[in-house]
């Protein structure tokens, strides 16, 4: 059952990710990215990370991607035009990327033997209680710093966007 669920959502994630890269219109890429985030949320649930799965859907898929879609709709970004572009990037890039993927996959298969398996329910320390306790004791300083970061981001976004919409 774990294998079936993993395969279904992994395939959905990869197909949606390919769609993000391949589609010409930004809205289709954005909707495919939402699909990637949704299937990743299910994979987090399989890995026992229930709080992170909920945070992924609430924050990432439900707020950040809404922001993306707003900007695409406001700017009326059209489909990318095919212009005369240099193929140098693709000629060099594609083999290097395939090499990178091959290298990563090779090292992953070498370093993580088959006997370490992921079963649903194998890790129960991902509850909101556990995350909250770690967040407010061990990671208190990063938490406060990150709150300041969000404040700076809010002020920056308002200042930048305000000058345009006047």
């Amino acid at each position, binding site marked *: 059952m774990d294998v079936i669920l993993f395969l279904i959502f992994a395939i959905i994630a990869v197909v949606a990710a390919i769609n993000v890269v391949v589609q010409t219109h930004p809205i289709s890429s954005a909707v495919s990215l939402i699909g990637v985030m949704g299937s990743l949320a299910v994979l987090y649930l399989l890995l026992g990370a229930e709080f992170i799965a*909920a945070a992924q859907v609430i924050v990432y898929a439900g707020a950040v991607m809404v922001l993306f879609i*707003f900007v695409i709709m406001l700017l009326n970004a059209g489909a990318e035009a095919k212009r005369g572009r240099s193929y140098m990037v693709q000629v060099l890039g594609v083999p290097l990327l395939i090499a990178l993927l091959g290298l990563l996959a090779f090292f992953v298969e070498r370093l993580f033997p088959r006997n370490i398996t992921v079963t649903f329910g194998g890790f129960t320390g991902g509850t*909101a209680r556990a995350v909250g306790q770690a967040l407010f004791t061990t990671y208190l300083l990063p938490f406060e710093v990150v709150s300041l970061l969000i404040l700076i981001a809010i002020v920056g976004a308002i200042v930048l966007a305000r000058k345009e919409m006047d």
Partner: protein
Amino acid sequence: MDAFIVITLIKLAVIAFVLLTAVAYLQWVERKVIAHIQVRPGPYRVGPHGLLQPLADVIKLITKEDMLPSYVNKPLYLFAPFVAVAMALLSIAVIPFGPQIEVVGYHTFMQLTDLNIGVLFVLAVASMGVYGVALAGWASNNKYALLGGLRSSAQMISYELPLTLAIASPLLLSNTLSLRELVGSQAGSILHWNILRLPFPQIFAFIIFVIAAFAETNRIPFDLPEAENELVAGFHTEYSSMKFAAFFMAEYLNMVTVSCMATLLFLGGWEAPWPASGGSNLVPTVIFVIAGLTALYHAANPPRLKDRYTFGGFGLIFLIIAAVFLAPIVQSWLLPLFWFLAKVGVILFAFIWIRGTLPRFRYDQLMAFTWKFLFPVAMLNMLVTSLMVAWFS
């Protein structure tokens, strides 16, 4: 494992059927209540007192021509109503309607599934519901629909902030994210419900939650994005027949969901206001007896001739239901269900009442209200709640 699957499928069928019927009849209740607020009868021709009006509406919506305009973005146009209805139905999956019951020797909860992050799940699904509106507005390729879609989704994500803070405050008192345990922590009497619970009664959080819920579900006074005299029909201008019915259903389902969440978070779920030892088991019987006697009285001197029979029939039905509530064999699950539905019904009535009473906000007033007033108040409420909880424990 087998019994579990069968029981879950049965629960799924029951909840789906009851929910879809309830949404259709919620529309009937809304039309009747708004009509009586405006001193007119409302639908009363189709069936006794218009009770078959939802059926007529469903038939009309199904048999309307299902257009697919040529200028729309077809994949997104067809996808948006699905998202809206799917997210609306998904959030009902974790709502508990009552305590544990026994069905043919198998113990089960009156809830499809109990997640230990139930509150976060409902919030997550509500966040995803924004996409139904935004993508519908964009895909329609129509400036009114786009404006309505953008305004509506901006409103929904802006009001998610005070909504989340208003949800976080009673969670500090109840100490759990699971919806079932939330109700369990409010057991006792009305003084243990989160709205009146020491160390800090969550009255402000309740009011903020209800206001934010009005905005999340696009109801008056926050329904500018779909008002008919402002933006044609907002984001669902280009939709007809079943797809329009999907958006319509999604709105009512969202209303039901936020009412259930308000009941679970603040009003104690299915707990009675005073314990059964004080006689709270007789309250439903008394209420239905009063309703039945009122209906029979109106049947005796009817305003219209037909009403002699319809009111008489309703009176008899109410008296039979009152008798059913006295039978001890059903009391273990029927009484908590009654209390839950009564509280949800009161909040839904408040939704409908406010729709018939208040004018709507202008869009800039709406956005200024959340960012400049509601969000700071919600933060202040959470701050005071956490201070009081930390002080007294």
